[in-house]
């Protein structure tokens, strides 16, 4: 961290805020560059929590966001899982939406033109149930106008080889990332699953196979039971846990991966406030994604961006990128 940090006493924060003249003196730079994707600030929306952007347009100015990461796309439209699809748990929620989406073709024709109207980077999350499908989706997206980068969801079962999730095995991760790499020139983000014995091995496999950026973590696998009916609370029995409950787990994994690989990292997992986002940056993330918080407050991302800016001013940090990996141990 720069010298500025030490010259500002932490207790002065609120006093400095009241003095507007003082605030003007500090110019902050929130922009970050992630593998060539230039973001105006480090805050993106997490896939699956922001629809295709249009759902949130009535609630916030999409131009304010670092990037919109859209709901995960497959080659063909998917209906999703049988309800109930969500259940609240302690400081979190389980979901088993089942990757319902409009499919890559409808996305390019019907959803992307809307997003192109904004001065915000569009990152497209996608998945497949075979290596071929991953490649085909990546190829289709590579030719579309207005996409800044791709984010691969590798927490999907491989239909062709025993239903093992790609992201839980380093060989499979390597194979699928390597194959997709050949089909896109766009910056490639690989989103890691936390449901593994050692996330750093998978992280290394992804980067070695051609991932430009890693994003983590995806949801933690979990379940909930209704004791009165003795039935699982989700139609799909198991689902993915998200929200504040998973933040400490996510933070630790980002810290571990940041030490293990050289690629930029996008931190994800239970971010509700600017403080949460800053924690992820301190342990090594270059940017963050806000997920479940969008459901609870559609304006959460904008509030987090403003909160990060406040933090930089209060602490005399000029560039947000200076925060990345500046954890003091």
């Amino acid at each position: 961290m720069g010298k500025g940090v030490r010259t500002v006493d932490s207790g002065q924060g609120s006093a400095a805020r009241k003095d507007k003249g003082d605030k003007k003196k500090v110019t902050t730079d929130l922009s970050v560059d992630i593998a060539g994707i230039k973001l105006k600030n480090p805050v993106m929306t997490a896939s699956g929590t922001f629809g295709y952007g249009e759902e949130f347009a009535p609630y916030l100015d999409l131009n304010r966001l670092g990037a919109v990461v859209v709901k995960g796309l497959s080659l063909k439209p998917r209906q999703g899982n049988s309800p109930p699809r969500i259940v609240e748990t302690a400081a979190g929620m389980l979901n088993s939406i089942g990757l319902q989406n409009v499919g890559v073709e409808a996305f390019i024709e019907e959803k992307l033109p809307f997003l192109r109207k904004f001065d915000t980077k569009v990152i497209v999350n996608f998945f497949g149930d075979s290596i071929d499908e991953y490649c085909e989706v990546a190829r289709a997206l590579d030719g579309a106008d207005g996409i800044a980068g791709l984010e691969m969801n590798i927490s999907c079962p491989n239909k062709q080889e025993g239903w093992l999730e790609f992201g839980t095995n380093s060989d499979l991760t390597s194979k699928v990332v390597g194959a997709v790499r050949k089909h896109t020139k766009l910056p490639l983000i690989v989103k890691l699953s936390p449901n593994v014995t050692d996330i750093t091995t998978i992280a290394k496999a992804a980067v070695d196979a051609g991932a430009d950026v890693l994003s983590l973590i995806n949801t933690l696998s979990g379940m909930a039971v209704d004791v009165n009916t003795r039935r699982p609370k989700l139609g799909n029995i198991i689902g993915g846990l998200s929200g504040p409950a998973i933040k400490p787990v996510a933070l630790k994994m980002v810290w571990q991966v940041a030490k293990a690989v050289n690629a930029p990292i996008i931190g994800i997992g239970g971010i509700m406030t600017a403080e949460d986002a800053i924690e992820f940056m301190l342990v090594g993330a270059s940017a963050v994604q806000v997920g479940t918080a969008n459901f609870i407050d559609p304006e959460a991302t904008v509030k987090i961006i403003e909160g990060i800016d406040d933090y930089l001013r209060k602490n005399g940090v000029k560039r947000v990128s200076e925060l990345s990996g500046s954890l003091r141990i």
Partner: protein
Amino acid sequence: MLTEVIYNRQILPLYYKLGIRWEPRPFVKPGQFVMLRFPNCIDPLLRRPFGVYRIIDEGIEILYKVVGKGTTLMTGLRPEDMVDMLGPLGNGFSLDSGKKDIVMLAGGIGIAPFYLSVVSGQRSGVRQKLLFGGRGKDDLPGLEDFKKLGIEMKISTQDGSIGEKGLVTELLKPEIRNPKSTIIYTCGPKGMLKEVARIALNLDAPCYVSLDNVMACGIGACLGCAVKVRSQESGVRDQGYKMVCKDGPVFDAREIEWEKV
């Protein structure tokens, strides 16, 4: 938006009325809902959906039943406490009935959307009747409000403590004298909605149901509140899902795949 509680009154052992400041008064269609949460609270985490019951001088009134953690905590809300509110959301009842008679059928807390719809119907001069049922006399929240409105009403309770003894759905059939000139609106427990839909479909009477579901966002993004629908025209099954929050909460009964509800 952050706003203030005006009052929080217990009206029956399990039912409360919550007055929420909302100025200038919003335009809310009957059947629309708001989502509430405690400001900055992470447990409970998600907002809860509540139908708007009445428009009051300084805002809106919610009718709620104590069913779980969130609503239990809500009973502790006091005047001037802050709540975080999002809305109005959803489509609401389309009250352009084409001068048909309206039969409303409510079960328990399912009464919530009907105060506004009765008021709206009285303005347009359409004939309306309310069938209101519950387990017992303590399960008919807002009954006095509807008496004051002077709407024609039939009541039933499962324990017979007030009105006719039995299920409210048993009152429906005799009310449908001419299915072509009657429109049914209903809200209540799933079993009741299924039965109302079955009767309406058999009589070929138009029927609109207000569904309730667990939801995270309320704005069509989380895809959590999915309900299975069938194609209305062809009757072909397995047409995918609609979202209760955005495509509903009010649906044409013919649209829903009732076996999956």
